[in-house]
């Protein structure tokens, strides 16, 4: 890579604001403008993170959290993608009738269900995974249904007139043309899964990133609180980025919808 003024400007626009923000934050902390009792400086956050990394607690908590989110997400995808395809493709009328009920269920707040999940599945891992499953399933289901419904009918007619079988139709027409919707649903669900993991761990867990920060808050350990928050933010960014890269590679013929 050659460094000319253009790449420098690009770099400036991409990361300049974040670097500036961190610098200002550090300056504010070390000059005493921001009170140390409320705000931890970036350097102390890095120090705390380094400590966490050295004694292995970062790995312990992060792996637990990531696995929980992963299991919930995978389970939701395994259930919701086929279900969404069926609702959108084969049972269209059924879907039209069923949709209000699905919307109603999707609105049911996962926290309201938390105590019920505790009763059903005990206090182990499964109640948290079930909660993540519950939040991740709705975006995937709605988007998969919408994606299948939005397949151009002419394409299907064309393929059928050329004698394409049902499996070929599914693999060559329906899945590719609904993949944009499907992927945005999956990305939303992954985001939500990680999003919900934190409060689930705050409420009833003894390990995990959510527990890490709620514990820091209870003990009023400000640097640890900020360090935990930083890890969670980084993970959230990473997941979002990964899905965007996947989306770009796999659904590259469709224009991206950016919110």
């Amino acid at each position, binding site marked *: 890579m050659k460094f000319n003024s253009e790449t420098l400007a690009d770099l400036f626009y991409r*990361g300049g*604001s974040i670097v500036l923000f961190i610098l200002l934050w550090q300056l504010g902390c070390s000059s005493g403008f921001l009170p140390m009792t409320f705000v931890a400086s970036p350097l102390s956050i890095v120090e705390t993170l380094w400590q966490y990394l050295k004694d292995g607690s970062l790995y312990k908590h992060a792996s637990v959290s990531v696995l929980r989110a992963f299991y919930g997400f995978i389970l939701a995808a395994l259930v919701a993608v086929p279900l969404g395809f069926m609702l959108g493709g084969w049972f269209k009328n059924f879907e039209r009738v069923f949709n*209000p009920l699905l919307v109603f269920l999707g609105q049911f707040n996962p926290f*309201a269900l938390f105590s019920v999940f505790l*009763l059903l599945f005990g206090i182990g891992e499964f109640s948290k995974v079930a909660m993540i499953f519950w939040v991740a399933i709705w975006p995937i289901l709605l988007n998969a249904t919408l994606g299948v419904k939005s397949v151009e009918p002419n394409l299907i007619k064309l393929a059928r007139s050329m004698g394409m079988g049902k499996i070929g139709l599914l693999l060559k027409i329906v899945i590719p043309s609904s993949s944009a919707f499907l992927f945005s649903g999956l990305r939303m669900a992954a985001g939500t899964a990680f999003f919900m993991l934190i409060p689930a761990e705050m409420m009833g867990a003894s390990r995990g990133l959510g527990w890490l920060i709620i514990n820091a*808050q209870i003990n009023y350990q400000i640097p640890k609180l900020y360090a935990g928050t930083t890890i969670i*933010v980084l993970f959230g960014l990473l997941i*979002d980025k990964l899905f965007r890269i996947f989306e770009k590679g796999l659904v590259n013929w469709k224009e991206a919808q950016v919110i």
Partner: protein
Amino acid sequence: MTVAPMPISPGLHIKALYQPLYWLSLKFGLLILALTSWELSGRLGLIDEAFLPSFFQTLAATKELWEKAFLFNHIMVSLARVLIGLLMALILAVPLAYALGRIFPHTAHFLEPLLRVFGLINPYCLFPLFVVFFGSGEVPKIAVLTWVSLWPIFFSTLTGVRNIDPSLIKIGRSMKASKFSAFWKIVLPATAPQIFSGLRIGVEMSFFILIAAEMTGATAGLGWIIHSAGALYQVPRIYGAGLCVVILGLLINRFLVFLQNGLFFWKESVDPILGPSRPLDSRQKISPLKIFLAIAIFTLVLAIGFQQIILAERRLNDPTIIPEYRVWTE
């Protein structure tokens, strides 16, 4: 010579009459079927009532909450928190997005990565920070709700501002539109649908987080009912309060859809939840009376909510009510 009226085929006529009724009956039929199977599965012992109380038990619990545990007060407190959060987010995000998108596009370009990071921060991990900053009253809850709906509104407004058709602005300028009228007549109408779609995402996120915020450190609100009922394993009450949250969320969403269809009657939209909007030719511009009514309802709800927040706080310190009230907390 008279023009013969277009013959209307009887089949079409009947179908037009029968189609919506058919769907409506199917929809309600399914709802009734779902409710009946919910009730029956509890009654027949298919599902343990400790996990899923039957429909009538849930209703009875809701009624009991309403009569004895000030359910109305809790609903209004939760609603007021959400509405204040949304209002604050609108007040902050929309001018910021306009300023960054129209006046300082380079600054917007520079700041965008940082703001995207802010938008991706998990609001739940901010909650402990907000408690550290703002104490434990109403402020951290409203701050979290504001934060949550701020970013969807900001980014969708910014996208809207950036994607205004430049020829519209050029036409306005060539007709000597002043800056103010260009804003009022071109920029605002062109971006308002985007603000609205951001607002709707914000509403959904707000309801998600409201319950969590009220569960961790509140003394009133639907989340608090769920929390205290959960701690006591009074499962019917959990479902009763959960039902209230769902109905509240759906009502607000419906209200926004009604406004959206009336205000942006010229624009087709595909809703992620409700599907495509009604066809354009069947829509009409919202009348000023309806706008006035909507604003009046909003203000009224906000006022009642404020009053109820004060009432809830007063009740906490009222020695005459506490013994009865405590039944629900301990």
